[in-house]
């Protein structure tokens, strides 16, 4: 609330103490803040990066989760343990070596660097596997008798049934990608490929004392995430619930 009011105040009113809670409807703060940085570019970058990351994660999670949950092949359980062990390697540890890897393949300062490394999610694979392994065995038997290939079974039987899991994964990966800062901050340097969060940090670095414009920028960069969350809050909370329940066991 206070942020909304500050973003609508004149600079003089912001610098009063105790803080004033009377808004003065200075909508031009938003105009000034919007014009002070390439926000449209930042927003388009974020939307592009978040949506392509989501698509990639859904594809890799559905394929791998299906294999781990519904197919039988030698070494399956060992491979699943290997995938789970990735949870022990936090992103901070990977900043330095991945920077060098991305530098070597000339991906620094590109969209690729912000999408592909995040294209496989252990959480996503785990969740699809849990869902798939609860499906009745008769489904797979029926598919086998019908002569359906495993890919066909995945696409026309499994995917529709695990849709709730896929939606939860999409929501969390989407918000995670929208909110991510450290990775794009380290791996990119040009506003032409940078996302909103990095843009906001740059804006703060250069306009750090313009509090009315700064809070306007903080508001319009947060608003899309908030609206998105409030619209989908039921799936979000159920997702957190089922993950907590699943991991505890």
């Amino acid at each position: 609330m206070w942020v909304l009011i500050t973003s609508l105040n004149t600079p003089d009113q912001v610098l009063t103490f105790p803080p004033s809670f009377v808004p003065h409807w200075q909508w031009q703060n938003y105009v000034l803040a919007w014009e002070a940085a390439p926000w449209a570019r930042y927003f388009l970058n974020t939307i592009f990066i978040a949506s392509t990351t989501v698509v990639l994660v859904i594809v890799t999670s559905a394929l791998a989760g299906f294999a781990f949950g519904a197919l039988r092949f030698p070494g399956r359980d060992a491979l699943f343990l290997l995938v789970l062990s990735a949870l022990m390697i936090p992103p901070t540890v990977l900043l330095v070596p991945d920077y060098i890897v991305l530098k070597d393949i000339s991906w620094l300062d590109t969209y690729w660097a912000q999408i592909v490394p995040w294209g496989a999610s252990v959480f996503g694979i785990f969740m699809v596997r849990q869902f798939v392994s609860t499906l009745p065995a008769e489904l797979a038997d029926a598919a086998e008798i019908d002569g359906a290939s495993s890919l066909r079974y995945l696409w026309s039987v499994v995917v529709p049934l695990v849709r709730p899991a896929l939606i939860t994964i999409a929501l969390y990966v989407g918000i995670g990608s929208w909110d991510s800062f450290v990775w794009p901050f380290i791996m990119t340097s040009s506003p032409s490929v940078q996302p909103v969060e990095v843009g906001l940090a740059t804006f703060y670095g250069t306009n750090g004392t313009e509090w009315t414009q700064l809070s306007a920028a903080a508001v319009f960069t947060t608003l899309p995430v908030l609206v998105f969350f409030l619209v989908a809050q039921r799936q979000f909370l159920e997702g957190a619930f089922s993950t907590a329940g699943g991991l505890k066991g």
Partner: protein
Amino acid sequence: MLESRWGYAYLVPALLILVAFTFGPALFVVYISFFNWNLLDPALSHPVGLENFTRLLGSARFIGSLVVSLYFTLATVAASALAGLGIALLLNRHTIGRSTARVAVFTPYVTPLVATSIIWIWIFNPQFGLANAVLSAVGLPELQWLESTTWALPAVIMYTLWHNLGFTVIIFLAGLTTISRELSDAARVDGANAWQELRWVTLPQLVPTILFVVVISSIGALQAFTQFYTMTGGGPLGATTTTSYLLYQEAFVFYHTGPAAALAVILFLITAGLTLAQLRLGRNRGATA
């Protein structure tokens, strides 16, 4: 279950990404940590054995960063576990308005760190901020907050709590749905008061959830970077330089790649230790229960 030679093919996309950007680099960082690594020309790198590690262990900056990380981790984990449990118990008891309250509590968790930490910088502004307005309203002395070596870290801790508390609450709420109603009813029939019921009936059944919350939030706290970058930049005078922040400075401000890799290895060992401790504690409980 389908017998399939094609199982491996389904794993290829995910494994390719994990090997290229997680497992491979994780091994690579261990390798780099034994080198004086030249970022511009790797051919000029030369092995230095354990020197990166011994230098770190002897440096005041590293030891200082461990102290800051420990302070930050203990404070955020203890406070968010206690407050999270308290709020979850409250929400669990009252059914009216619960779903609205759940959404309200969870909302800060999905907000972007850069945007909301900028707002909290303003809250902690010594001249015009809300924090000092509250302090002076209740008759307490005003503080310099982010500009003070004593209060900068508590200020970042308060912001982090605000941001993460909702996640803890949801996990505890999920845990509370799994505990047995019969046991609570039996305790009440036997004349247990609310505190006794909580202490002897509810909490023992929540131990796995508490363990999960503590380990997950400790790992998160050790990784915390964004709020430090925007709110304090590791200052004043290194008062908020955590081990993760030191890693960033070494790697991407000073380009000391070898020492930064050694820091990453140490962070990895701490994280892996915490994860294994959780698995072990969980298993021991299972064995004795």
